[in-house]
């Protein structure tokens, strides 16, 4: 099977990890040799890039505005505590999203005329929400709902900002789950039903466990995406990392705060992205080993 794969397939499969042409694993000296070549060529490229940037005429100004050590020290505590709020929002939202999205996906996967109304409702929700920019939803709920001053309804902007993210991400994530549910072969559903299991039990015990396994990489991808998108609630004036950096910027006209926030986001999202790749690759290998 792999013999026939085109270079494009290879790129698609190995994705961003494709650093050079694939070659068969040779003897140890050759491995050491290629590691050395990779190291030297990386070193040359990075040095060259740094040299170009640091010797350029604009660098002193860029450094002062973006990479200013004293500004960094000054803004860091605010950005860091804002970032902690981002993390908290992310964790709470993600748990709720994963649960609600699964429920929506299961509703969409029910068959038979009796379930048509709730199936339609699920489709309507998904279509509607996926058609609206997240930022718009955040503004609408975050400012709109508290302004209504309804009794018994929470009026915190933070609450509604996170709710908007949950509503939006649940729609996308339920589609990820649904793709997983549909990737499980029909014969699995049939044999579960033949045991007398209801549709719901068939989904829960037989289809969903297999479906979730199939879409874990896609779900992890969603994690990375949400982990950054929580910052969007800054538009509600919530003091998370981006907002903290913005306040500093408005006061000093210095952009180092944004760089500090960017670094914090990267520290969290890059490992998750690497883990996603690692997991996807391992899962692919396992499946290949199983099918041979």
């Amino acid at each position, binding site marked *: 099977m792999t013999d026939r794969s085109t270079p494009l397939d290879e790129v698609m499969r190995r994705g961003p990890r494709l650093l050079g042409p694939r070659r068969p694993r040779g003897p140890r000296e050759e491995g050491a040799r290629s590691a050395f070549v990779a190291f030297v060529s990386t070193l040359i490229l990075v040095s060259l890039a740094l040299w170009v940037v640091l010797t350029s005429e604009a660098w002193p100004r860029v450094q002062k505005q973006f990479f200013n050590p004293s500004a960094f020290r000054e803004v860091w505590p605010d950005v860091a505590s804002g970032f902690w709020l981002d993390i908290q929002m992310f964790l709470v939202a993600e748990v709720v999203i994963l649960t609600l999205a699964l429920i929506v996906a299961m509703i969409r996967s029910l068959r038979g005329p009796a379930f048509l109304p709730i199936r339609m409702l699920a489709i309507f929700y998904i279509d509607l929400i996926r058609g609206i920019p997240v930022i718009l939803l955040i503004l609408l709920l975050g400012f709109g709902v508290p302004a209504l001053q309804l009794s018994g309804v929470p009026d915190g902007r933070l609450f509604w900002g996170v709710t908007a993210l949950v509503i939006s991400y649940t729609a996308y994530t339920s589609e990820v789950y649904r793709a997983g549910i549909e990737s499980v072969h029909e*014969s*699995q559903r*049939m*044999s*579960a*039903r*033949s*045991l*007398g*299991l*209801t549709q719901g*039990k068939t989904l829960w*015990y*037989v289809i969903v*466990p*297999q479906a979730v*396994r199939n879409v874990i990489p896609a779900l992890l991808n969603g994690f990375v995406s949400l982990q950054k998108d929580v910052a969007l609630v800054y538009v509600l004036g919530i003091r998370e990392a981006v907002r903290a950096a913005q306040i500093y910027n408005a006061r000093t006209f210095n952009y180092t705060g944004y760089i500090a926030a960017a670094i914090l986001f990267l520290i969290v999202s890059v490992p998750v992205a690497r883990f996603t790749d690692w997991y996807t690759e391992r899962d692919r290998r396992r499946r290949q080993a*199983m099918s041979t």
Partner: protein
Amino acid sequence: MAVKLELTNVGKAFEDKVVLRDIDLAVQEHEVVCLIGSSGSGKSTLLKCVDLLVPIDEGAILLDGQAISGPDVNPNTVRQRMGIVFQAFNLFPHMSVVDNITLGPRKVHGLSKEAAEERAAGLLERFGLADKMHEYPDRLSGGQQQRVAVIRALASDPELMLFDEITSALDPELVAEVLNVIRGLKNEGMTMLIATHEMGFARDVADRVCFLDAGVILEQGPPGEFFTNPQQPRTRQFLQRIVEAGRL
């Protein structure tokens, strides 16, 4: 003997392709009926119709004289009374052997985990798979997987067993172990409807053989008569080819 299963005038079409037409078939209690015929003759669909996995377009299906094919019948309660085993095993790959077997008893029949596992252990013992109880399906041979699938269907104490070409996906040397399981069930008096390509087995185990061709039961009779003295030209042609292929 009472009639266990009865199909009267059953018809089924997918889009405009007719797969079953005017099927009249009665299976007595404790009887073993084999369905034979070329691929695409409708054997598989017939079995799935009986288990209500595929809705019929015409006619009626009766279990113990009660219609089960109508819209007012809960298919789940009907399916609890039958077991079906498929060609491709269809075990649940994310569950161990014992979990596969106890899923129905626990989640449909409400047995406790302990009671269901005790029963499963007994069945595995009986079919020589006691040591595979906690294995996952992908660690078993095809023959073992198929025997687990049979046990899974038996675990809910069915009154009727349906087998859909259960040896067709197996390596030749694994066929016997699965067929012996069915022979064992026959000796216990299980009522069975078996679609099969194994003519020697059908002749050996069946009380009656039905020949399906293009969705119609063309000919049926006791195996001795059917295999030695077929009446229809199409049946003769089919059996002739089987003999030429060295399969009978």
